[in-house]
């Protein structure tokens, strides 16, 4: 770590003991055909916290999430997940290890209902093989119902009972985002990555969503990393914030510290907001 090199004016996060660190990113760099999306970024996510990743447009936030859940493979750097250094892994492996996420532009399964979309989050937990599925009656049906119960709890939790059997394509945007959160929750993840969960929402929807995120964090103890543009929301929700700009980390610390950081202020003034 080169924490001393001309960075001492940056707010640094409190060093955490290893056992509390759920995920650590060390010196990760990612480039697409020569265009650098992420340059030498390091930070960690502690168990049970809400970690915000903020930064101006094009700062590399989404790329960072894509690296974490294995969709992109960084050219340099390592990712330590639950104490073990992770080699290259496919997204479905990340999913099976307890990383779930939502997307900036809602990525629901458009042809399916709300219920089926959330059920799809249970895919990894369901195991009945093809031949039981053919029969349906018996083990396959029992398994389906067992998971349906859990999904119904989520539907109840997110207060989307009224749209349970509605194809998601017909839902307004705010509700789609909520369903997507439900789908991610259905995976019972250890780490939940939220990519701009409140983008395009009105004030009321934002408040609802903030409440859900906090509830998820508190009720289920889920660790959350979220990208968000609304600074108010970030300050209210998150325990710690990491700030990116042009693919580099420019600040890391508590919301209050980050807000005071000159580098952050410059970065945000540099773009129209």
């Amino acid at each position, binding site marked *: 770590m080169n924490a001393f090199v001309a960075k001492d004016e940056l707010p640094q996060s409190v060093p955490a003991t290893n056992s509390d660190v759920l995920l650590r990113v060390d010196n990760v760099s990612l480039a697409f055909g020569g265009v650098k999306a992420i340059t030498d970024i390091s930070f960690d996510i502690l168990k049970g916290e809400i970690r915000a990743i903020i930064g101006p447009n094009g700062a590399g936030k989404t790329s960072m999430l894509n690296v974490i859940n294995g969709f992109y493979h960084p050219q340099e750097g390592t990712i330590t997940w639950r104490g073990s250094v992770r080699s290259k892994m496919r997204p479905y492996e990340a999913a099976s290890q307890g990383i779930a996420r939502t997307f900036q532009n809602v990525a629901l399964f458009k042809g399916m209902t709300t*219920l089926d979309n959330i059920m799809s989050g249970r895919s990894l937990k369901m195991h009945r093989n093809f031949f039981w599925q053919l029969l349906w009656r018996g083990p396959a049906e029992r398994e389906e119902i067992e998971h349906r119960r859990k999904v119904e709890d989520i539907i109840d939790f997110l207060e989307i*009972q009224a749209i349970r059997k509605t194809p998601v394509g017909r839902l307004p945007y705010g509700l789609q985002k909520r369903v997507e959160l439900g789908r991610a929750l259905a995976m019972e993840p250890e780490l939940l990555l939220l990519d701009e969960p409140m983008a395009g929402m009105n004030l009321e929807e934002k408040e609802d969503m903030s409440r859900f995120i906090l509830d998820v964090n508190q*009720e289920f103890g889920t660790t959350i990393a979220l990208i968000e543009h609304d600074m108010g929301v970030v300050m209210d929700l998150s325990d710690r914030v990491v700030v990116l700009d042009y693919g580099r980390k420019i600040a890391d610390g508590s919301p209050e510290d980050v807000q005071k950081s000159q580098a952050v202020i410059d970065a945000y003034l540099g773009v129209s907001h």
Partner: protein
Amino acid sequence: MTGMADTASSGGDTFPKILLHNAKVFEDRTAVREKDLGIWQSWTWSEALDEIRVFSLGLKELGLKPHDKVAIVGANRPRLYWSMVAAQAIGAVPVPVYADSVAEEMAYVLGHAEVRFAIVEDQEQVDKLLSMDEAVPTLERVIYDEPRGLRDYDHTKLHGFTDVQDIGRGLLASDPGLSSAWEAGFSEANGSDLAVMLYTSGTTGRPKGVMLSFDNLIISARNANAFDGLNETEEVLAYLPMAWIGDHVFSLAQAFTAGYCVNCPENLDTVDVDRLEIAPTYFFAPPRVFEMLLTRIMVRMEDAGRIKRKMFDYFMGVARRAGEKILNGEQVPLSDKILYTIGEFLVYAPLKNRMGLTRLKVGYTAGEAIGPEIFQFFRSLGLNLKQLYGQTEASVYITLQPDGEIFGDTVGKPAPSVELKIADTGEVLYRSPGVFVGYYKNDEATRSTKTEEGWVHTGDAGIIAENGHLKIIDRAKDVGKLTDGALFAPKYIENKLKFFPNIKEAVAFGHERDRVCVFINIDLTAVGSWAERNNVNYASYQELAAHPDVYRMIESHVDQVNRDLSKEPMMAGSQIHRFLILHKELDADDGELTRTQKVRRSFIAERYGPLIEALYDGSTSKHIRTEVTFEDGRTGAIEAVVEIRDLAPHAATGKIQEAAE
């Protein structure tokens, strides 16, 4: 007409006793369902008994004593209904409270009732109650149904419903004799004991706690069941506030005495779907629900294709002509009978199906006058919709319309065992087994409402028509006089206005003034849909309300009302001379409506004083600034310039001899 039902023979004279009886007699019949987690979770009568027993034991262990008051706060949920009976089994008195009332209102009620326990739905209610420490010093324990979000709360005063049940279950497991001891505990109670306390929202002043005994509720319920032939096969949907006497009688008293099944909807957004799924056989709704249903039918039919709309209009014409007669068993031409049968297949049955009223045996509406056209609409579809007239103080039933004797403008004949008389002032008085014990801690009010002989003042002015049916004109105290001496019954006028789907609320003024003027509140759904069809653009409610085209439309409605009034000798003098359309919706949160959506006349008069002034000083528009409360409790102000329109009254045409009616 059936006589007074025998209390001892069928089940018992208190709800806990009836519960024991039902658990034995109806055992595996479904007692209650709740749409929860996507399906209708069901409990049989014997399961309900088990649930109630363990909860009751748990309550006792937590220190609930006889005569304690227990607040019940929340939406219709099986557990909350059970809580009432569980409390009654210990001798305590449940006090259901309107869940949507603001903290201050609720604090008054709970403080007045001196509740020791509160059983509530969820975090929202818990927060509300916990904030009332000072206003309700007696409150010792809060029990919640829905644990979500409450994990980190201090649980010294707070208990989960299931935790309380677990306490009871634990006790029961360690001492099997406890069950019979529990039953013995309420075997001594009898019908004259206090069953429940319901606070009436009241159009004026503080709410009053109406004390009702088991006899009040159970005898009234049994009479009503006998009157309409209700039995254990009925299905009802419990969706009206639990603190309201109607729900208490329909979803608890009558359900227990008849043994029928009560269905609790998933949440308020899904009531329509839930009603469709359950298809209740016995359905109660205030007029506004029927109005809403009708408005929605009409709005949706506007969007239908031409052929379909033609078909709909044609068969609705047939229904208007013949439907009610067929329902009443009167003679109709064969052609109409055939057309009605076709219409039943093409229109009526599908409509009833969409509303979830296919299996309806009896439907009631009450609380306010229902528009004759709305009433007729539903009846002409073949739905046995009837009106009743009731009060909390009467355990609902005062008058009922018997099958086959339905008149749109009357509220029916006295219910079984109810005596009725009209006082000299025109006020309706009644005496019945359902008459309440008294107002809690308010003897003065009790004395002024209930006479020594047991007659109760309804506060409504009415007349008994020749056919023995009661006709309500207005609140007794609201009936006033214009300066020229003409009778002014504001509600009568307002109701006539409100029968137009475009008009949501109306407030008439005229007492001790020279002429009648009204405020009008447009119905956003109906007018919005009209605007869409007529290419009227608007950005807000306020803009729509002030739109000249809307004014023109409302003016024609008002004129129509004047024409109607002019035909009634007693009312011809109170035609509307001027009106305005309010720039905001009247709202319970702003105190303009009661929680049951009735207008609070005096409050509105005060709040919109400048507008009333303008109505009578001849000006054609007026600027007004109004404080409003938003849903989240914040307050703000909206301003508008409201236009006032004049109308020319019609000449009176009614024959004078009818004035006697």
